[in-house]
Every structure is written in structure tokens, then in C-alpha cells.
């Protein structure tokens, strides 16, 4: 049932001047973040978390959702212009987008990327809005033991699909679990695992953790690369002249409509991939591109055709809305960015669970409306600023890296005015750097960090109900047993079959 009163309130909040401005700021910043090679949507959202904390709920959502959508599209700009995807999500766009640029059709490719992104994003948001409340009705029937096993299943899936190497994914998840136990236990609030450091008794805050993990660690890696070699700078200098060869040929309505099949393939694949924990926009784009290529071999994908750009861009942007489905339905984020969106709302006192639709209807309706209208903002901003974003990729790393490090440091301090958050951010930055170098994925860490209190509380509630009997606490219903079997099966199957190896080979091909 639609709560009309809440819907009206959400509409008035979202269409207030402040929220609209923050959506615009988010999309504009996101386009820039996406276009800058080295920065991802997750890094951008992480850097904005301290700011989101200071804003009203709807404005914070507008900023973050807008930034996320802008960044996923923005990655295509440098992919098309310089064959250097701003984010990994746009790597598939290079194949046809850059080939079009070399033919003097760069502007056409940029417009195709924008329209395909917005079309698939908008339609997948509609699917999200319809599907999430229906799935949440089922999820409200879950008890503590089912919720515990759901978390375990989601983490298994995320660890299995976050990288080629299952044990690295699991190590990352276990690390997130451990970091979440620092502070105090979630039921008795008794201090634990603080290493005798008093300021750790409050636990590790999400904002410094994700700024360290996604922004600082990335910049440390970029810094080392820059100090060790100047190849990247040289490459950009060589490609600078290509900006002038983008051409002025636009995209006609007929050409846009001609790509409907590729956009639909992108929509279906992107939406499905987005709903599954761990896969992400890059997999959505490559799968969509490969399927579209198989379906229409006569279109000569890879030689610079707009259908290739449409398939890749619709495939990655269609994951944006659906990636929120596990968060909305189960309270379990399916990706790093979804975890950060959930974290931003947790800072505002909104805790995601299947009951969130009843407990916070205004927020949920606001989220849905923002998902839709930020697509139109993305369309307008993308059309106006695409060429400016393309030039952003030429910004010298010597200026960009210290600037982002400064913002990360000041942002993590400004979040609560606590110097200890700065220490945590810098420490996690080093940890994240080591994880990047050794190929350990970060998504399982941040998602597990966020859901561990839920899992621990669920398990302990189940233990209280079963009076300390572990077997009946863990397996009190056929659904609990089923979820346990799924969690074990996901881990064993992904280890034995190496499903991700095949997906990665697909990306490398």
C-alpha cells in the first residue's frame, strides 16, 4: 500500500530548493569524479560522507545518489576521449567509444553514452522501485536466525564474486568482521577489543574507514606510481591533441532508437547483475557488451559502432538502482557504494531492514524520487559539461593527488571534529594500500563491517530465544537451514568452478 501522506511529504522535501541543489552538486561532482582516472564512484561517495552527515536526510541522499549516477556515466567520458576509463565500470566503453573518437565521431559517442546511460538507469530505477517493496514483504517474515544466515549468505556471495581469488575475498570479509568488533558489544555496550586505547571504545566510525579505504589508499597508490614513473603523464600529453578531433557530429533520434536492442540487453543484464551482491557495474557492462555482440554479429562491434557504446553504457548504468535492492529489502548492502549509501543514512538514524518501508516511508519515497530525477539532472549536466569533464582527465596528477589527500584528511577531521578519526583514516589508508597491492578486494570488508552488528545482534537474539542452545538458535526453521546450505554451496562452488575467472577472462578478452 502506498502511504500517500508520506509520499506527499517526500515530494515536498525532494522538490525543495536545497535538495534540488544538492542533487545538482552531486551529479556535477560525480561526472568529474568519474572522468578522473584513478577516482571511482565509491571514492567520491566516501569523500562526501562527512559532508552528507551535516546535511538534512533528503539533501544527503540527493548528493550521494547524484554523485553515484554522475560518476558511473562520467567514467565513459575519458574512456571515449582518451581510451582511459575514468572508472573500471567504463572499461567496456573503450572498445567502440575510442574507435569512434579516432574516426572523428567522438561527440556522437559521448552523446550515445549519455543517452544509453540515462535510459537504462531510469528504467532500472523503475524496476527497483516496483521490486524492492514486494521483496521486502517476504523479508519481513524473517526471524533472527534467518537474518543471521542471510547476512552470512550475502557475505559468501560477495566474497566469492568480488575477485578471482575466493580466499582473498573471504580474508577481506573476515577483516571487516574483526574491525567491526572493535569498540563495544552491540547488546551490552561493554567495551572490548580496544587494545587499551580509550578512544577506540566508541568503535571505528564508517566515514574515516571508507575515506581511508577508498580515497586515501587509492591516492597512496597513485602517488607511488607517479613517483616511480611519469608514463601516465606522458600518455595524456600525447593524447591531448585527440580532444580537438572529437568532431562536431551529433546523435540523431533515429540513431538513438536504432540501439534499442542493445539498451534492452544492457537493462536486463545490468539490473540482474546490480541486484546480485559483489558483481558490480564493470561486470554488467562487459556481460552486456558480450551478449549484444553475440546477438548481432553483423554490427561489427569493436570497430567503432554506437551499438557497442550503447550496450556497455546501458549495462553499467542499469546496475546503479538495483544495487540498492539488497540494502532496501534485507538491510544488507550488495556493493561498496550501496554500503556507503546505507552508512550515510545510518548516520542520520535510519537503519535498513525489511521494516524500513514502514518505519521510514518518507526517506524511502525520497530515495525513489531522487533515483528518478537525478537521471534527468545527469542528462542535463552530461550534455553541458561533457567536454569540460574530458579536459579534467588532463589535470596533472601532481596537483590532484595532494589535493585529494588534503580533502580526505580535513574531511575525516571535519566529520566529528575528532583527531582520532584522522588517525583511523590514515591507518586504514595504509591497510587499504596493502590490500590494493596484494589484490585483496575491498567491497567484502566494508559491507561486512557494516552488517556485522546486525549479524551479531541477530545471532545473540536467537541464542536468547533458544536459551543458549546453539543448534536450535542457528537452525530453527527450514529457511535457516536452506540459507545455510546456500552460503556453503556458494563458497564451495565458487572455489571449485572458479566462476569469476571466466568473468575476468571475458573482461580481458
Amino acid at each position: 500500500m502506498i502511504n500517500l501522506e508520506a509520499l506527499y511529504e517526500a515530494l515536498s522535501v525532494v522538490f525543495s530548493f536545497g535538495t534540488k541543489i544538492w542533487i545538482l552538486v552531486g551529479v556535477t561532482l560525480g561526472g568529474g569524479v568519474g572522468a578522473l582516472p584513478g577516482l571511482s564512484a565509491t571514492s567520491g561517495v566516501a569523500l562526501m560522507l562527512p559532508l552528507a552527515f551535516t546535511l538534512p536526510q533528503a539533501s544527503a541522499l540527493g548528493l550521494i545518489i547524484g554523485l553515484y549516477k554522475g560518476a558511473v556515466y562520467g567514467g565513459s567520458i575519458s574512456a571515449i576521449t582518451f581510451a582511459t576509463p575514468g572508472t573500471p565500470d567504463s572499461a567496456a566503453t573503450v572498445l567502440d567509444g575510442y574507435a569512434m573518437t579516432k574516426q572523428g565521431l567522438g561527440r556522437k559517442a559521448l552523446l550515445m553514452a549519455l543517452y544509453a546511460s540515462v535510459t537504462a538507469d531510469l528504467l532500472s530505477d523503475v524496476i527497483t522501485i516496483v521490486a524492492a517493496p514486494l521483496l521486502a514483504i517476504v523479508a519481513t517474515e524473517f526471524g533472527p536466525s534467518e537474518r543471521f544466515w542471510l547476512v552470512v549468505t550475502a557475505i559468501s556471495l560477495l566474497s566469492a564474486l568480488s575477485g578471482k581469488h575466493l580466499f582473498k575475498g573471504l580474508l577481506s570479509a573476515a577483516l571487516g568482521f574483526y574491525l567491526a568488533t572493535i569498540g563495544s558489544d552491540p547488546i551490552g555496550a561493554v567495551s572490548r577489543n580496544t587494545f587499551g586505547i580509550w578512544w577506540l571504545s566508541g568503535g571505528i566510525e564508517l566515514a574515516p574507514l571508507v575515506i581511508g579505504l577508498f580515497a586515501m589508499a587509492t591516492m597512496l597508490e597513485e602517488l607511488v606510481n607517479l613517483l616511480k614513473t611519469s608514463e601516465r603523464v606522458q600518455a595524456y600529453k600525447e593524447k591531448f591533441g585527440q580532444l580537438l578531433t572529437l568532431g562536431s557530429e551529433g546523435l540523431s533520434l533515429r540513431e538513438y532508437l536504432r540501439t534499442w536492442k542493445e539498451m534492452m540487453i544492457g537493462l536486463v543484464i545490468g539490473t540482474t547483475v546490480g541486484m546480485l551482491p559483489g558483481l558490480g557495474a564493470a561486470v554488467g557492462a562487459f556481460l552486456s557488451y558480450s551478449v549484444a555482440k553475440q546477438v548481432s554479429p553483423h554490427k561489427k562491434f569493436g570497430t567503432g559502432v554506437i551499438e557497442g557504446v550503447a550496450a556497455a553504457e546501458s549495462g553499467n548504468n542499469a546496475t546503479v538502482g538495483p544495487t540498492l535492492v539488497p540494502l532496501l529489502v534485507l538491510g544488507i548492502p550488495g556493493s561498496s557504494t550501496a554500503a556507503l549509501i546505507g552508512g550515510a543514512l545510518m548516520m542520520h538514524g535510519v537503519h535498513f531492514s525489511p521494516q524500513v518501508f514502514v518505519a521510514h516511508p518518507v526517506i524511502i519515497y525520497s530515495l525513489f524520487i531522487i533515483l528518478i530525477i537525478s537521471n534527468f539532472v545527469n542528462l542535463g549536466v552530461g550534455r553541458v559539461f561533457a567536454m569540460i569533464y574530458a579536459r579534467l582527465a588532463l589535470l596533472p596528477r601532481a596537483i590532484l593527488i595532494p589535493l585529494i589527500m588534503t580533502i580526505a584528511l580535513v574531511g575525516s577531521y571535519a566529520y566529528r571534529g575528532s583527531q582520532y578519526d584522522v588517525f583511523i583514516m590514515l591507518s586504514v589508508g595504509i591497510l587499504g594500500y596493502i590490500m590494493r597491492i596484494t589484490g585483496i578486494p575491498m567491497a567484502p570488508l566494508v559491507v561486512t563491517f557494516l552488517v556485522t552488528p546486525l549479524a551479531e545482534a541477530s545471532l545473540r537474539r536467537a541464542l536468547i530465544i533458544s536459551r543458549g542452545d546453539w543448534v536450535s538458535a542457528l537452525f530453527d526453521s527450514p529457511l535457516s537451514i536452506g540459507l545455510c546450505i546456500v552460503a556453503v554451496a556458494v563458497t564451495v562452488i565458487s572455489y571449485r568452478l572458479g566462476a569469476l575467472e571466466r568473468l575476468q577472462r571475458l573482461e580481458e578478452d
Partner: protein
Amino acid sequence: MTLRTSELGWYDWWRTNRGVGIVFLVALLTLLAYLFTRDWAYIKLRDGIRLGFFPIAAVALMILTAVGLIFDRHHRETTSEMVNSDWRTWCYPVIATATLLAYFWTMTILGFVISTPILLAPVMYLLGARPLRAAIAASLITTVAVYVVFRVIGTSIHQGPLPF
């Protein structure tokens, strides 16, 4: 990107997944031993769970995954970053982090507006921004831009001796 290590020497064992697993295992066993020596870990809570149960369970899981890294079928593989790593790979991040800590300490005394260009200009120059006056100009412009943004959104920032 994952690479096989057939061309690496035996002394490069630490660059492989097995090496990473061994380093993690040693660190995690030390952490586990530390946790077992803490009195708080044995405190029994009202619901019958000991306070140290979840931290120890997390470390035990990490140990299992580290053992997995040592023995699974990918144990000879590595990443291109590990293959190409040298002393700079490990020292530069530490130096950068120490510099940022020093910057933060300076900021608490001199404030954001004075300390930020003092950090940014030499770092930008060191990273390749040329000529020097361009690095100085970029540091001043970025300081003012970041300061204005943080002030407009009303977040706390160290003032130092300056009145703003």
C-alpha cells in the same frame, strides 16, 4: 591483474599469494595470542556469550583464509604490483602518511589556511608540478577553494592564529 610466478626466483616467495598468506598468518597468530591473554575476553555476558567470542572468531576466520592463501591452487600467483614492488612501494606510503600526520599536527597550531599551502606547494613541486611558481599558485588556489567549500557547508576546521 593476476600473474604466474614462474620467472621469479625462490627469494621472491614473499611476492606470491603464499607469501602474503604467510605474512598475514604470522601477524594473525600474534593477534590471536594477544587476545587470549586479555582478561576482558573471558568476561561472560548476560546472554552467556563471552566478550572475546566475536573478536576471536573473526581472527580465527582470518587465520583460516590465510591458510587457504598458502595452500590453495592460486598460491603461486601474484599481482603485477607485487611483482614490480621495490623499497619505494613500501616506503613512499609510510613517508606520505607521516607527512600528512605532520601536516595535521601543524594545522592544529597554525590553522588550515597557513599550513595547507606549506604542505601542498613543496609536495606538488616534488611530484612534478613545474615551474615552482605554478606549484605555489596551485597550492594557494586549492587551499582557498577547499577552505571556502568547508566554510560554506559549515564544517569545523582549525583556524590557528588567523581571525578566519
